[in-house]
C-alpha cells in the first residue's frame, strides 16, 4: 500500500468518507435486495476506510501535543460517533426511510465535531490550527466506523434491529473498544520523531482486521453461521496480511532489529 505513504489529508478524507458511505450503502442494498445477510461483511470493510481517515486525523491533531495523551482524543471520537449514530438512525426511522441514516449521521457528526474543535480552540485556547477540521474528521470517522461495524453485526440499517442486535446484546461495548483501538492505537504506538504516515495507517488497517474478527464472532450469534464465518475469515486475512506488512515497515524504519535472546544466566 505504497499510496498511503504520502497521500495528503484532503484526499485521504475523501477516500475515507466515500469508501465508508458507499460500502455501507452497498452492503445494505445488497442484503435487502437479495434477501440475505452474507453481505454484512461489507460493513466491516467500509469501517476500514473510516478508520484510516480517523487514524490520520488523530496523527495530525496529536502531532501538536494535546497534553492528555492520545487515548483521550480517540475516546472523544467514539463518544461523538455513538451519539451521531444513534441520533441518525433514530431520525431516519422517524422520517420513514432507513437509507437516510448514514447521511444524517455524517452531517450531525461533521457539524458536532467541528463545533467541538471550535470550542477547543476558542474556549479552552488550544490554538491548534487544524483542530476544527481534525475534530470534524474524527467525529465522522468514529460515527462511520461504529455504523459499519453495527451493520456488520446486525445485517440491516434498521434502528430497531440495530438496537436489538447490537445494543441490547452488549456487542456495542466490544465494537466501541475495538473502534477505539483501531482509531487511537496506531498513532499511540507509532508516535515519535520518526513517525511515518504509511506505518501508522497500516497499523490502523491491521487493528480494523481485529475489529472485524470481533464483529464476525458477534455476527455468528446474531446472523448465523455463513455471514459470521465469512467476516471471521476475511478479518483474519486482513489482519494477517497487514500484520506482515506492518512488521516489514517496522523493520524498514528501525535503525536495527536485533534478537536479544533469552535472559542471561544469573551471575553470582
Amino acid at each position, binding site marked *: 500500500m505504497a499510496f498511503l505513504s504520502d497521500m495528503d489529508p484532503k484526499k485521504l478524507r475523501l477516500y475515507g468518507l466515500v469508501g465508508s458511505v458507499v460500502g455501507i450503502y452497498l452492503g445494505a442494498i445488497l442484503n435487502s435486495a437479495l434477501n440475505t445477510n452474507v453481505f454484512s461483511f461489507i460493513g466491516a470493510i467500509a469501517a476500514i476506510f473510516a478508520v484510516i481517515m480517523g487514524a490520520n486525523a488523530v496523527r495530525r491533531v496529536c502531532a501538536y501535543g*494535546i*497534553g*492528555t*495523551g492520545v*487515548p*483521550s*482524543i480517540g*475516546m*472523544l471520537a*467514539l*463518544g*461523538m*460517533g*455513538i*451519539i451521531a449514530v*444513534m*441520533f441518525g438512525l*433514530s*431520525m431516519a*426511522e*422517524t422520517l420513514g426511510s432507513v437509507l437516510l441514516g448514514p447521511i444524517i449521521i455524517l452531517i*450531525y457528526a461533521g457539524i*458536532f465535531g467541528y*463545533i*467541538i474543535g471550535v*470550542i*477547543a480552540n476558542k*474556549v*479552552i*485556547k*488550544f490554538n491548534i490550527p487544524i483542530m476544527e477540521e481534525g475534530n470534524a474528521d474524527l467525529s465522522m470517522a468514529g460515527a462511520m466506523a461504529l455504523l459499519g461495524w453495527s451493520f456488520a453485526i446486525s445485517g440491516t440499517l434498521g*434502528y*430497531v434491529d440495530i*438496537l*436489538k442486535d447490537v*445494543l*441490547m446484546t*452488549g456487542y*456495542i461495548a466490544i465494537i*466501541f473498544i475495538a473502534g477505539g483501538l483501531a482509531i487511537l492505537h496506531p498513532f499511540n504506538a507509532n508516535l515519535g520523531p520518526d513517525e511515518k504516515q504509511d506505518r501508522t495507517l497500516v497499523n490502523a488497517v491491521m487493528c480494523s482486521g481485529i475489529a472485524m474478527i470481533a464483529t464476525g464472532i458477534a455476527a455468528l450469534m446474531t446472523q448465523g453461521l455463513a455471514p459470521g464465518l465469512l467476516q471471521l475469515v476475511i478479518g483474519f486475512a486482513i489482519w494477517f496480511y497487514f500484520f506482515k506488512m506492518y512488521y516489514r515497515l517496522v523493520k524498514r524504519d528501525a535503525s536495527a532489529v536485533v534478537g536479544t535472546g533469552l535472559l542471561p544466566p544469573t551471575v553470582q
Partner: protein
Amino acid sequence: MIDTTITIVYILEILVGGLLVGIGVHFVPVGGAPAAMAQAAGIGTGTVQLAAGSGLTGLLAAGLMMEAMRLSGLANHIPAGEIDYNIWLVLASGAVGAGIMMGSTMLTGSWIYAYAVGAPFASAKVNYDPITGFSQPPYVAPGTVGQGIPTICFVSGLIGGMMGGLGGAMIYYPLYLINGNAALSAMFAIGIFLVNAVIASWNIQGTIEGFHDPKFKKWPFAFKACAIASILLALASVMITGGA
C-alpha cells in the same frame, strides 16, 4: 410526543449532568504517566480513564437503582408508564457508586505507592496540607512534583468521583425516561460523558492534583466549553426514540 415543559426539564438535567462531569474532572487527582512512575502526586493514569471509570460506575449504580424501582413497581401491579422513579435516590446511588470506585482506586493505588514503590506521600503544590496541616516540602523528592496520594488529593478525588457519578446519573435518568431503553440510554450517556470528560481534561492539560492545585482556577473555561457541548448533545438526545 412529549410535552414541551418536560422536554426542557430533560434538556436542563442533561446539561447540568454534563457540567457536573466537566467540573468533577477538575477535582480528581490525575497524575498521568509521571504519577505512574511516582514522580508526581495523584493517580497514575489519564483523566479520561479515571473520569470514564467513575462515570460508568455511577451509571451502573444509577441504572441498578432505576431497575430496582421498575421491578418493585411492577411487583405492586403499577402499569409500566406510571412508575414513579425517585430522582434523588437515583442520583444518590450514582454518586455513592462512583465515589466508592474512586475511593477504592486511590486506596489500592496508595498501597502500591507506600509499600511497593516506597514513596512518602507529598504534594508539591502546597506547603502545608490544608486538611492535616502536615508540612509537605521536606518529603518531596528533588526533581519530582510530589509522590503518592496525600490526604488533600484523596478528599478532592472523592469529591470529584462523586460529582462524576452524580453527573452520569443525572444524564442517564432523563435519557431513560425519554426512550425507556436501558442499553440505549447507557450508551448515549457514555457518549455524553466521554465528550465532557475529554473537554475538561484538555482544560487541565493532562495532570492536576485537586482543588488546591493552581490549575483548578481554570475551571470556568471548562464550564463554558462543557455547557456548549452538553446543550448540543441534549438537543440530540431528546429527539431519539426507544425503538418501540
